[in-house]
């Protein structure tokens, strides 16, 4: 029997379990939505849904970057601190530019450009240390996580960096306004997700990420420039952190040492719930999107009801993560 003639449909027991893994996150999402509807009729309201999605979009955009990093067998623990330091520097740069550029979109755009640039630079640093320095990703990003966190504390002098309120007024619509009633963060999140899915599935870069995460030696013997691909995943991650931050800054107009705390864990959790393997070799962007939304919905549903304390949010998220990995077990990598 040859490849072209599989006359019997391959509905093996394994195949079925794999299917469950594929639909698992979607199933969980559907259950959560049903639960939300049954608990509170406001759950499906436009306000509630846009609110949940807009809040999830920061983590979501970062998690899409993390999907690439993890698929390629890496890890980036520094994204939360990186977000904080980028937010801080963006605010400082915008405040500093006001005298020369005046209040207006010019300053805001300069601030946004700074954010993306800084993200890219941070990614280059992480990636270079990991690929050229041959240090483990966990160690490097644990280090930069501390460095970035302490940098933002230092820049804010232990307090809070606030954006000039007139500029903040100009900037506010980037978080609060949108197109056809859909806030910008959700739109950007959706665009990044679609772009990410396309890159992961339909470009050589996406294929190479999975190859490297699956077996770095095989990738090297297959003429893939392992270091460059890996470096690119960290740069992409950094840039996406920058994108998330430029949507985040107009929300509060400030940054402090508590900005972005634990974002890295939420992002990684979203990636894993979505079905990407933590060891690398297999990743899917749509899964990550679903994973992040699941995490957001748990918090939201807890807030919408009165039986269980919302303080248990973290516990529920933890249970979901463990369940997701249990479901994934048995997938051979």
């Amino acid at each position, binding site marked *: 029997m040859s490849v072209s003639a599989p006359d019997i449909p391959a509905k093996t027991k394994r195949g079925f379990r794999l299917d469950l893994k594929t639909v698992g996150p979607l199933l969980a999402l559907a259950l959560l939505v049903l639960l939300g509807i049954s608990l509170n009729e406001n759950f499906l309201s436009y306000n509630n849904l846009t609110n949940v999605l807009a809040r999830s979009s920061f983590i979501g955009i970062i998690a899409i970057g993390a999907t690439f990093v993890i698929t390629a067998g890496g890890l980036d623990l520094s994204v939360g601190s990186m977000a904080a330091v980028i937010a801080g520097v963006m605010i400082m740069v915008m405040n500093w530019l006001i005298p020369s550029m005046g209040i207006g979109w010019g300053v805001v755009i300069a601030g946004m450009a700074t954010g993306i640039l800084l993200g890219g630079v941070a990614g280059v640093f992480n990636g270079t240390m990991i690929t050229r320095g041959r240090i483990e990703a966990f160690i490097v990003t644990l280090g930069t996580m501390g460095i970035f966190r302490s940098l933002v504390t230092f820049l804010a002098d232990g307090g809070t960096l606030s954006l000039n309120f007139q500029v903040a007024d100009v900037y506010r619509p980037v978080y609060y306004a949108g197109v056809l009633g859909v806030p910008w963060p959700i739109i950007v999140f959706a665009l990044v997700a679609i772009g990410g899915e396309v890159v992961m599935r339909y470009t050589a870069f996406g294929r190479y990420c999975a190859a490297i995460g*699956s077996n770095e030696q095989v990738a*090297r*013997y297959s003429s893939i420039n392992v270091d460059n691909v890996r470096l690119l995943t960290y740069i992409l991650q950094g840039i996406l952190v920058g994108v998330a931050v430029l949507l985040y800054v107009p929300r509060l107009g400030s940054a402090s040492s508590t900005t972005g705390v634990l974002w890295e864990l939420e992002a990684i959790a979203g990636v894993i719930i979505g079905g990407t393997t933590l060891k690398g070799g297999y990743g899917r962007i749509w899964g990550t999107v679903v994973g992040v939304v699941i995490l957001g919905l748990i918090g939201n549903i807890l807030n919408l009801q009165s039986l269980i304390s919302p303080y248990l949010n973290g516990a529920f998220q933890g249970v979901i993560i463990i369940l997701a990995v249990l479901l994934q077990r048995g997938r051979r990598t």
Partner: protein
Amino acid sequence: MSSVEGTVAPAVLSANRISKSFGEIPVLFSIDFDIKPGEVHAIIGENGAGKSTLIKILSGIEQPTSGSITYDGETVTLPPDGKAEAMGIVLIHQELNLAEHLTASESIFLGRELKRFGFLDLGEMRKRAAALMDTLHVRVDPDDRISTLSVADKQMVEIAKAISRDARVLIMDEPTAVLSVGETQTLFEQIRRLTARGVAVIFISHKLDEIMELADRVTVLRDGQLIATVGTEALTPDSIAQMMVGRELSNLYPPKHEPDVDAPVVLGIRNLVAKGVKDISFDLKRGEILGFAGLIGSGRTAVAEAIVGLSHRTGGEITLDGKPVNFTQVAQSVDAGLAYMTKDRKGKGLLLNMGLRPNLTLLTLDRHIKAGFLDSSSEERALERAVRRFDIRARDASVAVGRLSGGNQQKLMLGKTMESEPDIIIMDEPTRGIDVGTKQQIYHIIAALAAEGKSIILISSEMQEVIGLSHRVVVMREGRLTGVLEGAEITEAEIMRYAAGIKQSGNDERISA
């Protein structure tokens, strides 16, 4: 050859009308098989015939879909996950199965560590491991990490581990595929020692001469069906091969077409020095098949890896079509029309968790890009081509490559290498784990490539293959080139003399033909 058919000795382990399907895909059909104490029973068959599946069932790793297993006269359900080891059924897998980060001694005693006063007795384990390696003539230190060992040494550690178990039935799935002649002989000595003690041995190999030498009985499988079980004395390598593939196999090696005497040199190597390579010089001509013989570990792979830029070259010169080149990345050599096919298909060749298509095109993905995006229909066409050309048999194209039979993995890897349409191909053990029928196909492909004007470096530990195909043969020993043989000099005895260091050509006057 003692206990052959007809002896009254009862079987220690037998399979009765065993069938196996993976999902709805049948792989084995009602197989009867048995093994008696002190006997070597060989299983042969084409790639994907179901040999590995059968012995996985016999050792409990897979459960049969129907049929029963009898052990010591009783019908049993063998426990999965290798727990049948405790019952005396020990299996050496086809694909190496050692934890890479353990030491040799730790792997050998994994799961039944020696203890003293409740603590691990490291000294004793090391001592016994060293003694085991000695009986196998393996130069592995008990403290060596598995990850640092060559494939052959890993296999020997695996064998040491199995032998050290108190096996009553020892099952080996292609143990000799990665071994050289010398190592194979050592293994056979040990097997004979074990059978003399009454151990039953099941042995899978594609090397028919080994089967003739070692086995008492042979069972032939084809497409999951039992073709026959016969005593070895009634067989010849030709008749076995015929039973295996179901047709007559003539001309295993195609006729040699000598390349033109004045064919240009396409690859010139001068005084190459790299890790494991000491001052190697040779020329490869257009349309030539240049065999590389030598013992395992003699540095042939190291030469190949230094040429294509996989390992750092510390000295010497490489010219391609007369122009000096310096590859530091595989991509550069592939672009220049020089491809290397690794012998380590599991560790370096294939992504075992992915399907056939991404594996096939991984080396040449940039040829399947349209407007920046992967063109899956072009990849699909490439797969169809490769499946046809190399007769790759997978029951389902989406199956993870790790689930293919060993031989089909090898053919897929060959297809992957040839996707880059190289002018010069370095093939490292290209027929490892491949059945005779497919071997013949591959030999003809190699010869046809050479006839087309491609140049081939054929690294192989199968002497017959090197002799049957090569126009010239380079022999290496301990990182050095000891001789270059041509024409009538290409004989097994002569190659062995150079490989063992008994004979050595003084200088490089014969390097370029």
